[in-house]
């Protein structure tokens, strides 16, 4: 009896919500209907194309698809949707680039450990957080050793790296290196020492005034000029320098916003207790400022993550570069939609994750402060 009552109540709740939000007036009802028709049309078209009428590894005749000629849509034009076989065929390249496949377990291991390395930074209330943070600091060395190689592991030059590996390497390392740099830049920009202050202002404004592509070209061409003869950093490292500098300028501005929100009295109280500039900064100012600045920082990270795809212009094969290489292959050419939809989906997963994290933080900030 009680369960039917609950059902009735919850059903009427649901009904009330519908009436209130979707059918409250004639105009609202018409808009709702139009929107539903639109969503239905677009959604069903896409789902049919991407899933119901699509080939994955086998075509409609049950044959393994080994080139574009086997795709159902190329055998019976107009009847079938996407041909995802290209993604399966090129999967290793999308994930690792030209990394030797017998060594790919090293990359997989790093992919698997990456979440453990960042979880301690992202969430402050997880158990054993201290150990996760230790791991965060060990991880870069571990990742370098596993990915590049060294004693006991064969060396895999970065010219072999590609696909998601390059995208994540540039994104994660760029953000990781830019973070401390951006804190120094933001503090420097607010420094009372005129030389430090103007250096930081010039750096930040210069970088923000230049497109990332220009920086990538510049790093590619100019970096060797600044380094001693014989030191010839590889392309990936040059790109990393450009990406890091770029990101640090934007992050610095986000952090500066946080610093500005800290009342002067906080610094004065710390000073009056005898804390030094660095103690005040570390213990009082930064913890409060970063907390405020994290949502805008995450937004700059989302931007950077997408911008890493620009490195294909200096000859690196990130996810997008690998996709274009796949399309250039005569056996698979012309499957543009499949390749670009897949790449978009991968970028979307990461960026959407960051965006949700930023929202979560904003909510948490609000409840923390009340």
């Amino acid at each position: 009896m009680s369960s039917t009552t609950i059902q009735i109540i919850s059903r009427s709740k649901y009904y009330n919500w519908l009436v209130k939000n979707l059918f409250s007036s004639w105009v609202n009802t018409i808009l709702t209907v139009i929107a539903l028709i639109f969503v239905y049309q677009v959604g069903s078209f896409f789902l049919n194309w991407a899933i119901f009428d699509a080939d994955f590894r086998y075509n409609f005749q049950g044959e393994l698809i080994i080139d574009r000629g086997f795709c159902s849509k190329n055998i019976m034009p107009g009847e079938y949707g996407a041909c995802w076989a290209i993604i399966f065929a090129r999967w290793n390249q999308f994930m690792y680039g030209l990394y030797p496949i017998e060594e790919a377990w090293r990359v997989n291991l790093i992919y698997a450990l990456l979440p453990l390395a960042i979880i301690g930074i992202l969430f402050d209330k997880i158990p054993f957080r201290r150990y996760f943070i230790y791991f965060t600091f060990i991880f870069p060395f571990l990742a370098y050793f596993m990915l590049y190689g060294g004693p006991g592991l064969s060396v895999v030059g970065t010219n072999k790296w590609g696909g998601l590996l390059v995208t994540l390497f540039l994104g994660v390392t760029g953000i990781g290196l830019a973070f401390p740099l951006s804190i120094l830049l933001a503090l420097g920009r607010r420094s009372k020492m005129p030389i430090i202050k103007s250096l930081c202002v010039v750096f930040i404004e210069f970088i923000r005034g230049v497109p990332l592509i220009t920086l990538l070209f510049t790093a590619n061409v100019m970096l060797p000029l600044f380094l001693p003869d014989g030191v010839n950093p590889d392309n990936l490292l040059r790109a990393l320098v450009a990406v890091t500098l770029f990101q640090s300028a934007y992050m610095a501005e986000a952090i500066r916003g946080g610093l500005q929100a800290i009342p002067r009295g906080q610094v004065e109280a710390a000073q009056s207790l005898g804390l030094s500039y660095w103690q005040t900064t570390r213990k009082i100012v930064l913890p409060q400022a970063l907390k405020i600045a994290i949502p805008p920082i995450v937004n700059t990270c989302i931007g950077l993550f997408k911008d890493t795809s620009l490195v294909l212009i200096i000859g690196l094969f990130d996810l997008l570069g690998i996709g274009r290489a796949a399309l250039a292959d005569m056996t698979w050419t012309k499957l543009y939609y499949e390749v670009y939809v897949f790449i978009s989906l991968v970028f979307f997963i990461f960026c959407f994750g960051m965006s949700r994290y930023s929202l979560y933080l904003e909510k948490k900030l609000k409840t923390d402060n009340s």
Partner: protein
Amino acid sequence: MSTDQVIHLEKVNKWYDDFHVLKDIDLIVNKGQKIVICGPSGSGKSTMIRCINRLEAHQKGTIVVHGTELTNDLKNIDLIRKNVGMVFQQFNLFPHLSVLDNISLAPIWVKKMPKNEAEDIAMSYLEKVKIPEQAQKFPGQLSGGQQQRVAIARSLAMNPDIMLFDEPTSALDPEMIKEVLDVMIQLAEEGMTMLVVTHEMGFAKTVADQMIFMDEGRIVEQASPDEFFNNPKSDRTKLFLSQILNH
């Protein structure tokens, strides 16, 4: 001069750009003295006491605290700040730290005290200001009066021998003023050297050895409370007193 002299300001002048905030300030404070400073808004009271622990820098004249002259030398500034505590109108507690951490922070980082020792000291000062039960809370969860008492405990935990108070009760609701003043009176009875900017004239009459009236960047009148309240010399002091006492 006597060795009891702990603060000595001589011909101190300060400008904010063109604006002359402090004009030839002379002031001597002896050990254990309680000095109450009053005066109209903008007269430079805050600026003067903030010069004593170098939250503001003066441009002319000398300020000597415990025999150390305040200059740009950071070592001297650190030395003086360790011995001079300050309580602000807006409390300025650190909102991201618990009450206990607010108080033990400076002993741990400035005096390099072991954490548990610093926390014991923090607790003893919380007991002194009568809110030991709030140790684990965050500043945002306390009333204004409680926050200000934590701020006093935080300063005292550095074991200063001079305390500066800049309108410690002006941001408080009337019913909380007394609990803060009581702590300050107790501190005065224990012999702390205190410079207090306040318009609480009841408190001044109970505690002060010296009253100072400031106007337009000058010390206009300095006298014992008895003289000051019953027989003020300058007209500006008379006007000011009549305004705030009738208020």
